[in-house]
């Protein structure tokens, strides 16, 4: 319990820094979460009689959900239950989409999500370039410049010939669309 409390405190600090725009803290948070999500999904997929190769797709879908919904985290509350609820929601959604007979995922203690950790990442079946190709040109370019090539918003705005706020908006919209494209892609 003590290690879980310490874990919660450190993840929460990273999350709050990330919400304030600290990219390094946020990267550390997502890396840690990906290990926990991987261990969680592996166990639950096996229990539901599904293949382990679906794990990494789900990990990525959940990370995407954490990112696009990060504004729904209330910084006065614990982080672990919030992450657990998202992870479980995406698991149930995944099982339903795949017509799994086991869609009844019991509610466990939220600390289950940080109880185990797995660094054995595989590649997911998702292809980033193919996913991006499904987005409208202007949001795809915004993501390409700002999130992949790492150009500043000012530079990206100049290249696209639009304002900085429009660029930020396109990145924001693009990530939301990417998130739903990932969910749809997985269903196939």
């Amino acid at each position, binding site marked *: 319990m003590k290690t879980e409390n310490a874990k919660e405190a450190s993840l929460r600090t990273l999350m709050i820094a*990330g*919400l*304030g*725009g*600290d*990219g*390094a803290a*946020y*990267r550390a948070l*997502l*890396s840690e979460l*990906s290990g926990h999500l*991987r261990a969680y999904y592996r166990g639950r997929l096996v229990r539901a009689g599904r293949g382990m190769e679906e794990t*990494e797709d789900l*990990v*990525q879908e959940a*990370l*995407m*959900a954490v*990112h696009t*919904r*990060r*504004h*729904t*985290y*209330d*910084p006065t509350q614990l982080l672990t*239950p*919030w*992450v*657990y*609820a*998202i992870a*479980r*929601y995406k698991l149930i*959604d995944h099982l339903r989409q795949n017509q799994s007979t086991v869609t009844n995922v019991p*509610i466990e203690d*939220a600390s289950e999500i940080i109880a185990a950790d797995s660094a054995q*990442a595989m*590649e*997911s079946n*998702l*292809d*980033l370039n193919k996913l991006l190709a499904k987005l409208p040109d202007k949001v795809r370019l915004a*993501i390409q410049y*700002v*999130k*992949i090539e*790492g150009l*500043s*918003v000012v530079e990206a705005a100049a290249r696209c010939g639009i304002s900085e706020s429009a660029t*930020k908006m396109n*990145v*924001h919209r693009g*990530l939301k669309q990417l998130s*739903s494209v990932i969910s749809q892609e997985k269903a196939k």
Partner: protein
Amino acid sequence: MKTEQLIDLLSTNLEPVNTHKVVRSLWIATVAGLVLASLTCIVTLGMRPDLNNPGVLRFLFVKVGFAAVVSILGWRLLLKHTRPGGENHSQIFLAGLPFVALLALAAVNLILVPASDWSHLVMGERLLQCLLSIPIMAVMPFAVIVWAVRNAAPTNLLRTGALAGLVAGGIGAMAYALHCPNDSLPFVAFWYGGTIVLCTLAGAAFGPRLLRW
């Protein structure tokens, strides 16, 4: 795609976010829903003409007050449900309290009058108009509230949908009260209560489809 690659993408040029956005957009949507519903009532049915009568005005406050209490309790629960895991520490039964309380008052009211008055007190006049108007006036508030909730992240869609329906039903009832010609507690308890419950059930039915993310 490697997960590393996705993490790089997500954390590059990270923008700060406002965590008050969830509360703010639900608040704006609810107020907008109330304004839209009230305007719908005033334009299509019109305000009740005899509101200058103090007794009529007082009962208007009873009707609006009941619907407002239902909406406010529902709204607080709905707000909790819009965040992942919020359903785990919410006391959803609280939403039923105003209904039970008003039914009790209505029962007392019926006991105190002769049985021959019951039918008038319960059925009122233009009952059908009430039964149709409240759900119809709840449609627009429901739509704007669902829009706001979709930008959050509910993880129990059935309950969240039900609560959105409840709040919208309460708003519909507040709006219809501006026109409603009936001034009896049993009428409000049965038909306002009943139509709001209907809106709640409709919300629960649509929730999983409308709110999925």
